[in-house]
Each structure stands twice: as C-alpha cells, then as structure tokens.
C-alpha cells in the first residue's frame, strides 16, 4: 500500500488519494449527521424542529465545504477521472445538487420568510436532505458496481441509496442524542435504535458485493496471509455495532452520562467501513479502469498544492474544532445576537 517516497510521480498521487479519501470520510460523517437531522425532521414536533435546526446551524456550511474539497481534489489531482466519474453520474449528481440547494436555502428561508410560508420551507428542508442522501447512496452503489449501468447495477444502487439514507438518519439521531435533552433526546434514542439495522445491512451488502463484482478485489481480500489482519476490519465493525446496540438499549443514562458515545462510535463505524472500501479500490480511482497514477495531474502542479495543504489543512482542522468547542453543549435556539 505504501508508495516509493523517493519518486514524486509515485508518492504524490498517493498523497492526494489519501487527502481526498480523508476529506470524503470527514464529509460523510459531518454532513452525514446534518443531512440525517434533515431526514428525521418531519418526525419531530414543530418546537423540537427549531432545536434540531439549532443543533446543526453553526456547522452545516463548514461540513459541506469538505465536499467541495473532495470534489476539488478529484478535479485538480485526477482531472481525467473527475471527467469520467462525473459525466457518468451526470443525473444523480444533478439530483444531489438540487437537493443540496433546496436544503441549504430552506435552512435560511424558513426562519426569515413570513410565517405562513414556513411550512413550505420546512418541507423543502426535509425533501432536500432526503434527495441529497438518496443521490449520494445511489452514486456509491454505482461506483461499487464499477460504474457499469445495467438493470442489476441500478437495483443495487437503489438499495445502497436506501441504506445510506437510513444510515445518515442513524448518525443524525446519535448527533441529536448528544445535542438535545428531554423528550427530543428520548425520541432520538428511539430513532437511533430503529435505524441501526440499515447501517448493518448497508455495510454488509457492500462488503459482500464488492469482492463478487471484481475478481481483483476478491483476490485482494482473500489471499493468505493478508486475510488474517484484514479480518480485523469486520471484527472491529462487529464489535462497534454490538456496543452501539447495547448502549442504545440503556440510553439516556442518568445525568446525561455518555451521551457523546453513540455519535463517537458511529463515526468510528463509518470510518471502519470506509477504510474497507478504500482498501478494495486502491489503487484505482475509476474502478478497474484508471489508477491514481494514470489519472494524476503533473507532479509540479500537485507539489504546489501539497505545500499549501500542509500548512492550511492543520489550520482548517484547528479552527473547525474551535467552532465545535464554541457551540458545544446542548442545542438551544439560534439567534443572531
């Protein structure tokens, strides 16, 4: 897995693939929870909805910026792959963008428009979150299927669309356990319990499908001795799921103990699943067609970006953490004052 660090044409694509992978993962966890809150939105009472919005208000913009970074890195580091992937996924990308537009603006409009329009913006906020999640799940499914477009792959993509959507609802619910209290928190625990299955089903379906679709991936996983340490990934996921399951049955604990834990564990679970996926596809960026080395932009241009990234990414992480610290604690209403 490790590149030859003496040769820029070898390690630069690797470094960019890692950076891109990292930003996709951060995006999936962070925007995952705020999309999830949007998906759960209609299940709550109006006064709880304002609290739910309050819990994601200061963060959603920065969360989405990780998507911009991920696409940006794909665009700048692997331009050919960017073209192939996005023009193949033309329609789901369009659906996702419309979804993102709808929820992003509904978020602002619902609080500023006249009262009788508020219900409309609320509905749009939910619909936008739902469409975005479905479209992302659909794209994930097609990607796992090697970007082939047949009836079967569409069916599989439709399944992953549902799994990812419920998965986002799940991580959104665990976020709400952390950020809310009382009746809403109880509901959030309920929602988390009810949606845990989708996370299991989704991870299961993709883990089974990937090696079956591609012989190369099959060999990567099931050769001796790699299979021994690779076994750790499913074991770890299993352990995390078990912990979640037991924890959620007992939540909320007295004096709000451990309310951060479900969110932390589910982030870990998402990361584990993602790691498995990344291992399967490495070194391909377009499955079984184009490797990161074939698709990479010129080394001198990549180096220019990387130097900047080395300074800037830690700063970004630092002030993102600052924002989370400032808005820590239970969510209240949001005011511009």
């Amino acid at each position: 897995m490790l590149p030859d660090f003496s040769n820029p044409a070898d390690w630069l694509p690797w470094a960019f693939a890692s950076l891109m992978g990292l930003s996709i993962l951060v995006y999936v966890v962070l925007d995952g929870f705020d999309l999830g809150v949007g998906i759960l939105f209609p299940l709550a009472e109006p006064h709880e909805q304002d609290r739910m919005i309050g819990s994601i208000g200061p963060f959603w913009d920065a969360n989405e910026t990780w998507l911009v970074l991920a696409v940006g890195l794909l665009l700048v580091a692997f331009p050919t792959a960017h073209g192939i992937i996005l023009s193949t996924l033309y329609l789901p990308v369009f659906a996702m963008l419309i979804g993102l537009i709808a929820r992003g603006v509904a978020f602002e409009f619902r609080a500023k428009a006249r009262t009788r329009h508020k219900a409309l913006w609320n509905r749009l906020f939910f619909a936008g979150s739902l469409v975005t999640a479905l479209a992302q799940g659909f794209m994930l499914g097609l990607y796992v299927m090697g970007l082939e477009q047949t009836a079967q792959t569409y069916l599989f993509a439709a399944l992953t669309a549902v799994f990812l959507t419920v998965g986002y609802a799940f991580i959104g619910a665990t976020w709400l356990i952390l950020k809310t209290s009382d009746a809403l928190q109880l509901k959030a625990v309920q929602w988390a319990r009810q949606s845990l299955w989708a996370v299991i089903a989704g991870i299961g379906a993709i883990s089974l499908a990937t090696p079956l679709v591609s012989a190369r991936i099959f060999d990567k996983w099931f050769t001796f001795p790699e299979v021994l340490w690779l076994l750790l990934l499913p074991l770890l996921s299993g352990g995390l799921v078990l912990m979640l399951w037991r924890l959620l049955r007992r939540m909320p604990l007295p004096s709000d103990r451990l309310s951060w834990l479900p969110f932390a564990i589910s982030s870990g679970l998402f990361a584990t699943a993602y790691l498995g996926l990344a291992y399967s596809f490495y070194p391909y960026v377009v499955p079984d067609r184009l490797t990161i080395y074939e698709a990479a932009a010129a080394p001198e241009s990549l180096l220019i970006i990387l130097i900047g990234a080395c300074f800037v990414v830690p700063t970004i992480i630092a002030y993102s953490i600052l924002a989370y610290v400032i808005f820590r604690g239970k969510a209240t209403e949001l005011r511009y004052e």
Partner: protein
Amino acid sequence: MDVLDTLLLSRIQFAANISFHILFPTITIALGWVLLFFRLRFAATGDDKWMAAYRFWVKVFALSFAMGVVSGITMSFQFGTNWPGFMETVGNIAGPLLAYEVLTAFFLEAAFVGIMLFGFSRVPAWLHITATALVAFGTLLSTFWIIVLNSWMHTPQGFEMIDGVAHATSWSEIIFNPSMPYRFAHMVLASFLTVSFLVAGVSAFRWILGDRSRDVRATLKTGVAMAALLIPIQILAGDMHGLNTLEHQPQKVAAMEGNWDTGPNVPLLLFALPDEAARENRFEIGIPNGASLILKHHADGVVPGLNDFVAEDGTPLHPPVSPVFWSFRVMVGTGFAMLALSWSAAFLMWRRRDRHEGRIKGHWMAVEGLPKPLIWALVPMALSGWVATLAGWYTTEIGRQPWLVQGVMTTDMAVADVPAPMVMGTLVGYLAVYAALLIAYVGVIAYLARKAARGADDPANDMTHSGKAQVAALNPAE
C-alpha cells in the same frame, strides 16, 4: 450536430449557473466589510442604531451567503459534468488555483461564518469582531483566486504546452497575469457598489414605508455616501480595464465598440444594430471620434476593427458582436445612472446637513434633504449593481469566444460527451429552481424590510395574533 447541440446547451447551462452564482458573492464580498463597519461603529460608540443596522443586514448576509454557497457547489461540479476537456487541458494551472481557493478561502469563511452569525452572545466581543473580519477577508480571498483563474483564461502566460496539455512554468507570471489587477479591482468595486445601492435602496424602501428609525437613516446615508465615493473610481478602473483589453484582446474591444474596419476617427456609438451577416451596423447614432478619443486619447487614433479577425475561409475569429456590444452598453449605462443618482442624492443630503436629523445637530448629511422622486428612484436601483455586474461579465466572457482560454483552447474542445436531451433536462431543472429562488430571495428581503419598518423587528412582538409568541421567540437563525 449532436455535439453542437450538447455544446450550445452546456454553454447556456454554464452561463445560467455562473450568472446565478455571481449574484450572491457580489453581495457577500462587500456586505461582510459593511457589517464589520457597523459592528466596529457599535463597539466604538455603543450607539444601538449601529447594532440595529447590523442585525438587519446580517440576515441579508446570511441569506445571500447560503445562496452563494449552494450555487457555488453546483459550479464546482459543472467542470466535471459538462466541461471535462477544460481540466484535462489546463488542469495543471486551473487546479492549483481552485485548490487554493477552497483551502485558504472557503474553509475560512465557512468555519467563521457560524461564529459571526450565531456567536454574538457566546463569544467575547473581540472574537466576534475577529470572526466577522475573517469572513469578510475570506470572501475577498475567494474573489482573488477565482479572478486570477478567470484572468488567466483571458490573458494566459507562464506556461508551456506539452502534448496538448498546459504545464506551469512560472506561478508568479500565472498569478500576476496582465489583466488580473484590473479585473480584480473592477470586480471588488462592483461588489461594493452593488452593496451600496442595495443598502441605500432597501433603506429608502423602509423610509417610504414610514420608517424613521435612526438605523434606517444611518444605513441610507452609508449607502449613498459609499456609492458616491466609489462610482467615479469604478468608471476610472473600467476605463483602464478597457485599455488593458485593447492591448491583449483587440477583437473583444472591436466588438464592444461595434467597429468593423480598422482605422482612425472612430465614433463612440450610442446606438446601433450590428448585422453580422452584412458585416456592418444599422441605425448608427454616435459621437464623432469618441471611440478613438477614449481608447487612444487622440481624435485620429487607430481603433482595431472586426474585419481584421476573419480566417482565410471567411469564418469569423471574433466573438458574436451584438451581445458584446449591447451588454457593454448596459453596464456603462448603468454606471452613469449610478453616478447621476448617487451624486445628486449625496449633494442634496449634504446641503441639508445639520437639520432635521431628529433635531440632533452635527450630522454631515440629512435624509430629509432628499426629494421624494429621488427616494423612489433609489428603490429600483437597489438591483442596479446586479444588472451592471451581469452585463460586465457577459461582455467579458462572450467577448472571449470562440476561445475558452485565449489562444490555447476553444470552448468546443472542452465540452462533455453527454447526450443533449440530458443536458436539456438538467438545464430546465436549474432554470426552474433558480427562478423560484430568485423570487423568494427578493421577496424575503422586501418582507424583512417591511417587517422592520413596522417596528416588528423584535421577535417578541413578531406574531401578534394568537399565543404563538413563545414559538416565535424560539425562531432559530432569525
């Protein structure tokens, strides 16, 4: 044929998307600084009219920012979905510039905008002011990077072509390409002018509705003064920008002037209908020697003509003439309308200074000095910045055609191989969404203004009917 249809539709779609996107950065770039000004005035004087101004305009900022972000995300996907050839050919140059925009600017804005909007009572004043300043600085930084890229597409340098792919040879030449300083200055000024007229226009609207609060006076004066100060600078910057274009893209200037034949004593056309088939203008009305004077500062200065830019076989190598000619006139016309309005308003308000200002002396401008028609005129001019900015971008971008990157690649080389009906479908989808959002955006700003004018800005008396007041007090992000 198929590719041509896809090409045309993709161009329309790109133009629609970028036109929609640019509307909102145009507001946020300058409004961030204006908010910082309000915030600092409040910190310095403790006068709550500045806080009221801040509270009103921060809502407009939040709304515009969200619109800018979501339409910007659409933009970053457009390159892959519709223009893969662009990045494949010039990706080694465009890539790092776009990457620096995301890394240095977008994250800065996105992280601190939360603190700026919702942190007022959560963080100490210095941190809130710093966050506001960082957001304002971030918008300026994104403008810088994207303008560097756009300017490079007009005046490329600092690269070499190897096997049909551009490779950077000098980043300082790429970043400081010849048209960048002009374009950056002109765009930032455009943004500040857009905001001046927006602030003045919305405040005038509140004034007409009977709002005589001290914050509406303060913002009306701020808007008019800022506009009056900046518009002459903008006209000067525009003129210099044009001279720069004359040097690097003479065919664009020829189209802007509607001049067919190279020669001296070229008139400045006020009206004409360029006819590309006959290669001449119909119904010309112009000022003799005007174009020669402006472009060469000499009545018999030689101005390039479109007929110099035609291939051997007769295909034109210049942009389509009418759209460039007319968008240029719309921009310049709007600019002079801005000059006339802001100067007369500023002058009349200054003449009546020290009077009427709620009987407080010592003001340097009095809103009462404004005659009714002028106040009414300020209201539609709230959108004049958008008109001029779009017209300016159309001049610039259509004027670059058929090139995508001047002299390096043409637009048709970049287009994706997506079926035309699919592009048609998404185009219709985008247009419908944008139209709806634009109506909602303008409607909500008008609503906020009306609500503020009714003095109902305080959410506690937001909903007078029924017992919903408590819910209103919980209104998030309001």
